[in-house]
Every structure is written in C-alpha cells, then in structure tokens.
C-alpha cells in the first residue's frame, strides 16, 4: 500500500518534469548547443526522409561529433542505395575569424565529412568538396547561437 502511494508520487514528479522539459524544447526559437556545437533542428534540411543534410562543428574545430557521425552514416546509407547520385560537400565557418583562415577551415571540415563517407563505402569520385569559409552564413545573427549554426558542413545533391 505504502509502496504504491510513494510510487505514484514518484511517477507524478517524473511526469511533471517531463512536461516541463517538453515545454522548453517546443519553444520555436530555442536553439541548443552542446559545448559550442549546434544540436538544434533549425536550418536543417533533408536529402531524403530521415537523412539530414548537415553536420555542425565546435569553434576552430573540424572534428566530427558523435551526432555528426550518426547523420553521416545515414547519408552514406542513402548514397549506397542511390548509386547514381553525386554530391558536393560544402564547408563553412562562422564570422569570428580571419577570412583566409576560415576558407582553409571550411575546406578541412568538408574533407572530414568526405573522408568519413568514404570509410562507409562511398567512392571519392561521387564526393566533391567546396569551402565557402565565412562567406555564406545561414544565420546573419552576431551571437553564439547563430555562429554555431554557421559552423557546418552541408551535403548537397550535385546537379
């Protein structure tokens, strides 16, 4: 009897906190960052159902996060199925750096993605790379959240 009562209380608390956190994430403009890697869903587009077109990076880094590798494995799986598709992998940087270094950083990020896709069986001939440095931000804002959305590598279907 006592156990069931306290269990109900625990469940109540659990449900209440779930509700509260759910409210927090359904707010329209709440982006998220882990460290300074963007983890939100804003700006993301889809190459196919369930296949996100982009991954995000920490400041000055080109390392692929766990989340990024997850996205890229799905991209690779999609490309293994659609053998006639080639892509261009774009590398981008945020505006908080010198222009020329950012061009090189974008190139490094795009190549990190390319290398990872190749380890999943996609031939290099289907993957071309282009860096835009800081020239094509997706979010014009001058704040850490906007910058985290701009530190990205986007896979685009080649025409």
């Amino acid at each position: 009897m006592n156990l069931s009562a306290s269990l109900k209380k625990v469940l109540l608390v659990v449900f209440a906190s779930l509700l509260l956190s759910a409210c927090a994430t359904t707010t329209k403009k709440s982006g998220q960052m882990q460290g300074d890697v963007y983890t939100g869903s804003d700006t993301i587009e889809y190459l196919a159902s369930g296949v996100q077109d982009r991954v995000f990076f920490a400041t000055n880094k080109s390392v692929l996060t766990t989340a990024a590798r997850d996205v890229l494995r799905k991209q690779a799986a999609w490309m293994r199925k659609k053998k006639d598709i080639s892509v261009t992998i774009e590398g981008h940087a945020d505006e908080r750096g010198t222009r020329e270094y950012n061009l090189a950083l974008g190139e490094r990020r795009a190549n990190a993605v390319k290398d990872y896709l190749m380890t999943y069986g996609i031939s290099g001939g289907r993957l071309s790379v282009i860096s835009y440095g800081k020239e094509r931000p997706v979010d014009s804002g001058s704040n850490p959240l906007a910058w985290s959305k701009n530190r990205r590598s986007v896979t685009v279907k080649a025409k």
Partner: protein
Amino acid sequence: MKKFITIIFFLFFYQNSVFAVVEIDITRGNLDPLPIAVSPLHVESGSKDIKQGGKIIKNVGEEISKVIEINFKRSGLFNPLKKDSFVQSSDIAHVKPRFEDWKLIKAQALVTGKVKVSEGKLRAEFRLWDVVAAKEMIALAFSTTPENWRRVAHIISDKIYQRLTGEEGYFDTRIIYVSETGPKTQRIKKLAIMDQDGANVKYLTLGNELVLTPRFSPTNQLVTYLSYFRNLPRVYLLDIETGIQEVVGDFPGMTFAPRFSPDGKKIIMSFAKDGNSDIYTMDLEKRVVEKITEHSSIDTSPSYSPNGKYIVFNSDRSGLQQIYVMRSDGSNVKRVTFGKGLYGTPVWSPRGDLIAFTKVHKGKFYIGVMRTDGSGERLLTENFYQEAPSWSPNGRVLIFYRETKSDSEGKGFSATLWSIDLTGYNERLIKTETDGSDPSWSSLLSK
C-alpha cells in the same frame, strides 16, 4: 589612370633649408598638426576648361588645392587653413609671398602655384614656402594631360610630405578592395579600385561570382585575387588595363590567399588538398610550381619581406592560429607570436622593419604591429570585428576593414574600410559608395 601618361619634372629652383625650421616628426602621435596654407593654384589666362566624366572643371587650380588639402587633413599631420582668411591673391603669392600676411593667420608653411590647361596638355608648377624662415623650400613643375589633374595634386602632396617629414609620401596611390552589397547571407562582391582619397572608383568584375582578397602587382598593373568562377574557387590574375582575367596554374583543388613576390615574377598562395592547406609559389613566366610549406596544418596568408628573402605566414601547426617566419625557400620555419589569443593575416611592412597582423583575444579583434622577430607587439585598435591590415607604401599607415554586429535578419550589418597611423593615432573611416572589405594598398604610382 593611364600608365602611359608621363609626368615630366623640371627642377628649376631648389633651396635646401639649412635651418629646417618647419619640420614634422611622424614617429610619434602628432597632436599638433602643422598649420599650412594651401593657396589655390593660379589658373593662367588662356587656359581651357577640363571636361571629365560629364562634368566641366572651370578652375582646376582651385580643385587641385582642394585635393591637396584633403590629403593633408586626412594624414593627421597638417592643419590646412581656411581659404577665406587668405589675404594675398594666388598669382602674386606664387611669385612673392608677403610672409607677414601669412604669419598673421598663423600659417607655418605655404603652398602656392600656377597651372595652364591647353589642348591635351596641363602644365603645373608649385612652390612650398617656409613662412617662419621666410624662405622657399621646394619648387617643381609638371606636365601631363588634363584628365590627370588629380595625380598632379597627389604628387604635389607627396613632394611636400617628403620635404617636411623626411619620408616618402603615399598620396599618389590606389586602393583595391572588394565592394559588397546585398544581404549578409548572399553578399554580392565585386573587385573595385579607387584613388587613395576615394575618387575615380572603378569596378573590375561584375558580381556574378564571389571575389575575395585582391592584391596589386608591384607595378600596379595586375591584380591577383580569389574567384569562385564556375563554383571553382581559384586564384586568378586580372590585367587592370585590358580587364582580361586568367586562372593561375592548373591546380586540382582550391587555391586562395594570393600575393605577388616583390619582383612581381611569382604568385605565392595557399593550395588546399584533402583538407590540408600548404603554401605554394608559381612562376608566372616559366609556370613552374614550387611547394614551400610541408605540414598537415593550415598554412596560409603568406607575405614576403621587401627583399624577397623571407616569408611571414599564418599556421595552426601549434594547435591554434599563430604567425611564423621562414626563408623564402621554406626552410628555417620559426614561430614569432607567443602572446595570448589567435594571430592571423601577417603583412610585412614595405620598410622591412615591422609585421602588421590581426589578433583575436577574448572575443575582441585587434590590429597590431610587431618587430619581425615577434617582439615589441603593439595593438593599435580594438573592435568587435576587424582584420586584414595592408601597409601604405611608406610603411606609415595601415588600411583594414571592419564589420558590425547584425541581428538574425541581417539588420545592422555593414562592412567598411578604415585606416590608422602606425602611431595608433588618426583612425579614420574611408568612405566608399558601397560597403567594402579586403582593402589592399598599391605602391606609389609615379615609381
């Protein structure tokens, strides 16, 4: 500007002022600009009007003096006095100035001259007078075409600057930059060129593809830059006279950050392959490509020392962006920046004595200078975002660009060109008809 217009100098009366009463020290912050009276050049009778770009210039003598005054004012070293206080008329003052009249309005130096415009020819002469010592300091004459009247004003400014400071001037120069328009997410960029005072703007590309980071050749006839033509980012050459563009070399990947070697024979740039950016040179005549750096890090933004023996560049081989110096064959790489923060965009001064750079620390951007071994770091200005300094040919002024903060709609964004003296004084906005970035200074045109 036509490269084939010659300017002939006639030195007909030069007096070396032993007393050197009127002198300007440009090595320290100049808080006491020299009061100088620039009399309009007297237009000789029989002179024709000048037709230029749909406008008619009736008094080119007055226009020349205005350009000189603006040059002097913008240098921060001179205080050009207001013309409505001038007592003597321009033609008489040029022959025999009444120094007492000029002393009354507190002038320490006086510029007088005369100009004659005939069919296809402009002849000008000027004199610089030391009002305090009541002596003539320089007298020079020029001959050119009427459309070049602005260059006459700039050369006169340079001669006066040189006489009074002991250093070469920088007024007869041009600036190449990237003109920017459009929303922040989709900027339209064009190569633009203008006189250092903002006049004679010309657009060199159409804006159909991204263009970035242009640099002049040592003779100012060619420009090297990065273009995204056909969505393939590569280094290009553009001939300013003909407008003809050609890609530099045949690289299987992105080339960027290009500059000319001091002898103009090579392009030095970064080449990105498989995510790694190294520095390469290409001989423009022999088309021979040489790899200069060999490292898995990002190596970019190279800059030659004026004698061509060394290269300063940006590398993150230590983990973060720092500045390194190496011999021009790539040997003997030495790190020179050790301060807190990131360092980038190093540029070697034309005087050979300093390296200017961009520094980023705790979210702030700085333009600074240091000695070529990395010592004596001096930060000249701080901003939310600024970078990429370029030296005036006399190594005394730096030009760079700034960007402002914007909201997620891009409101509030602007990119502007700025200059600052080596002393850290005289920070100045350089007005351009559109937004601007990536400015680069030419060498003196008259060399």
